[in-house]
């Protein structure tokens, strides 16, 4: 599942492909990414990992904002060294971004479309109108960017990353700050955009991955910890997720014995969900792991190894 030699392949689709081969990035004597290798085909691909896992570094490398210390990357057959061509292929939504002060939504989009090489004014207008409609910002087209809410700004961020119709869309925490309705709308948008393309979705929200991705990659402390189908990850946690109902005294006494996935008060009792290799409490029952359980199970195992 992890640490395999060479490139790990998931999905057998042909067409657009992202191939990462022994990629390493160091800052001074800190290793942000260590010998990462995997291969991604068309569709939405989740990228998960705790803070400091190296997700942002990986995305910045793919967006040519950083140069690798060693290793190679190919996007649609183009190596990372051919930056001009890579920039045509890649659309990027960073986690933190802003626009020049005073720019309106449509001005910001038009400016970035020009920088993406879309020369014709009519063509830019057509694409911008379509995208603003898709991200539900048509009414705000003349609004100053600084006056947008956090959620609107993220939607604008997604739209700008799509404006030149990239073959690889890299989105870093795109749903942060979105309300549930916007989040669902956004997932639909990504799914539609991913047809014939790769979408690399980095997120802390496991639910985003669960509802949009077929495959995922987990990074931890700069290393690749998992790359494969979501079903395989949950299968690895099967038999280790337990639910139990405990009274509060018992819960206070035993709460640190096992990794807790959730704890919900129910009257005088607590309904808990824990990770354990064997039955943790009398009366505890096994349950099917969710992707979140599986992710935490993986992280827990990593922590115990490190």
């Amino acid at each position, binding site marked *: 599942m992890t640490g395999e030699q060479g490139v790990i392949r998931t999905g057998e689709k042909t067409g657009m492909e992202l191939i990462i081969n022994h990629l390493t990035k160091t800052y001074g004597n800190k290793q942000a990414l260590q010998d990462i290798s995997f291969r991604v085909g068309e569709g939405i691909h989740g990228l998960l990992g705790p803070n400091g896992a190296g997700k942002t570094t990986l995305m910045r490398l793919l967006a*040519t904002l*950083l*140069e690798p210390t060693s290793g190679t990357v190919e996007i649609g057959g183009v190596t990372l060294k051919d930056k*001009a061509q890579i920039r*045509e292929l890649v659309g*990027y939504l*960073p986690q933190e971004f802003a626009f020049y002060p005073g720019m309106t939504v449509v001005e910001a989009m038009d400016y970035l479309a*020009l920088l993406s090489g879309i020369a014709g004014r009519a063509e830019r207008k057509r694409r911008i109108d379509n995208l603003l409609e898709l991200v539900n910002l048509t009414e705000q087209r003349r609004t100053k960017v600084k006056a947008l809410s956090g959620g609107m700004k993220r939607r604008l961020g997604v739209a700008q990353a799509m404006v030149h119709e990239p073959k690889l869309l890299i989105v870093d925490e795109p749903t942060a700050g979105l309300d549930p309705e916007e989040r669902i709308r956004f997932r639909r948008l990504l799914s539609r955009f991913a047809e014939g393309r790769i979408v690399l979705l980095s997120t802390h929200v496991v639910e985003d991955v669960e509802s949009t991705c077929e495959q995922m990659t987990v990074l931890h402390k700069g290393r690749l910890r998992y790359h494969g189908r979501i079903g395989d990850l949950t299968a690895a946690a099967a038999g280790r997720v337990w639910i139990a109902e405990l009274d509060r005294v018992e819960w206070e006494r035993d709460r640190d014995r096992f990794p807790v996935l959730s704890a919900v008060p129910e009257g005088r009792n607590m309904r808990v969900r824990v990770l354990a290799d064997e039955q943790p409490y009398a009366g505890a029952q096994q349950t099917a792991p969710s992707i979140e359980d599986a992710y935490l199970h993986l992280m827990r195992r990593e922590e115990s190894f490190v």
Partner: protein
Amino acid sequence: MMALIGKEMRMTLRSLVFYLFIIASVFFYFTSYATEETWGELGSPVISTPQNVGTIEHPYYGWKQPADTRDLAEQMRKEMGWNLDAGTSQKIRLGFPFKVKLNEKEKTALSAAISQLDEVLKNPDKYTMDEVNTIAESVNNQLGGKSIYQQGLGEFGSAIETVDEAIKAQEADLARYNAKVNAGELLPGAARYFSDYLSLPAGIFPVFLSAFLLLRDRSSRMNELIYSRRISPWVYVGSKFIAQGVMLSMIYLILAVIGGWQTVDTLGLTGQTGQAIVIFLGYTAWWLLPTLWISVAFGMFGSMLFRRGIVPIALQIVWWFMSVLPLLGSYGLNRLFIRFNSPNDYELYWKWTDEIALNRSFYLILTVLLAAGAAWLWERNRSRLDSAKMLSRKTAKGSVAASAAEALR
């Protein structure tokens, strides 16, 4: 690229610093060039009854320039004599006059020059003014340059102490003015005067805009959105450079039109407005705009090289001070702008045209090179987001480790 230039020009219009630049330039125009003093210097001298503005014991009717070789040689000799007696002379250092002690070699040079001037004074008609000026130039070289003996830096005029002298000086002034008008040098002289004064803001204010032009991507947190796009550095930096250069040039070209029109109008030169505007635009384009464009290019290049806007601004201020003096006659390649602080002296101007042309051509070439350098550095920095973070953290907190941790996000 044209569309991008248009966008950048519109963005310049949103900059407060741009409007401060306009205010500063207009302020310089109205307080330095378009003044009563300038119109007095440009207008025809008036023959009137001389007025003693001194005392009965020490009458003073004004100041006169040397009328002939004798006058020039006498005044020059007096100045050299004073310097030799005091053992000091004045030099310009970083734009400011300083009294410096003369060493033995310099004193010998002054003594030799005095002997030469004594020879001239024995039979002044045998010599020309230029030959006398050459003696002063030689002393200037031996004093290490930038001394009061450099043409344009020092003057060898004298006080007018009698009515007869004053009338003669007025007649000489009028004759010089008529000769200037007949030579078609009135309007070019005014245009040179205009360019001289306006070169002062042109040599300093643009850098306050340009030094932050490329850094704004980062300060606005828009850099990742821009750097990851396919735009070539030449087009991106070039469009910003051209847009800002054009916007700033427009202000000076408009002021040139106003200057030409106002000069003709104030001096009552009927029917010469068109000609004046063409001449003012010509001098502005050739003298002022290279200064302005190099300031834009220097700010952009410096900000990319040091990744700090304040560094090119500080360097430009030093460069400006080094260029501000002398008021006439020094056009080495280190001079950021052309000083010709006189509406007259057109013979001197013609003598220095080659030097001025070389200076302006050099700055045009340097402008292109610096703009290209800025584009090259921008492209280099574009894929070094980590080093940009490193640098800013290092400066802010003196800790590289902190930036590495930040970059690990």
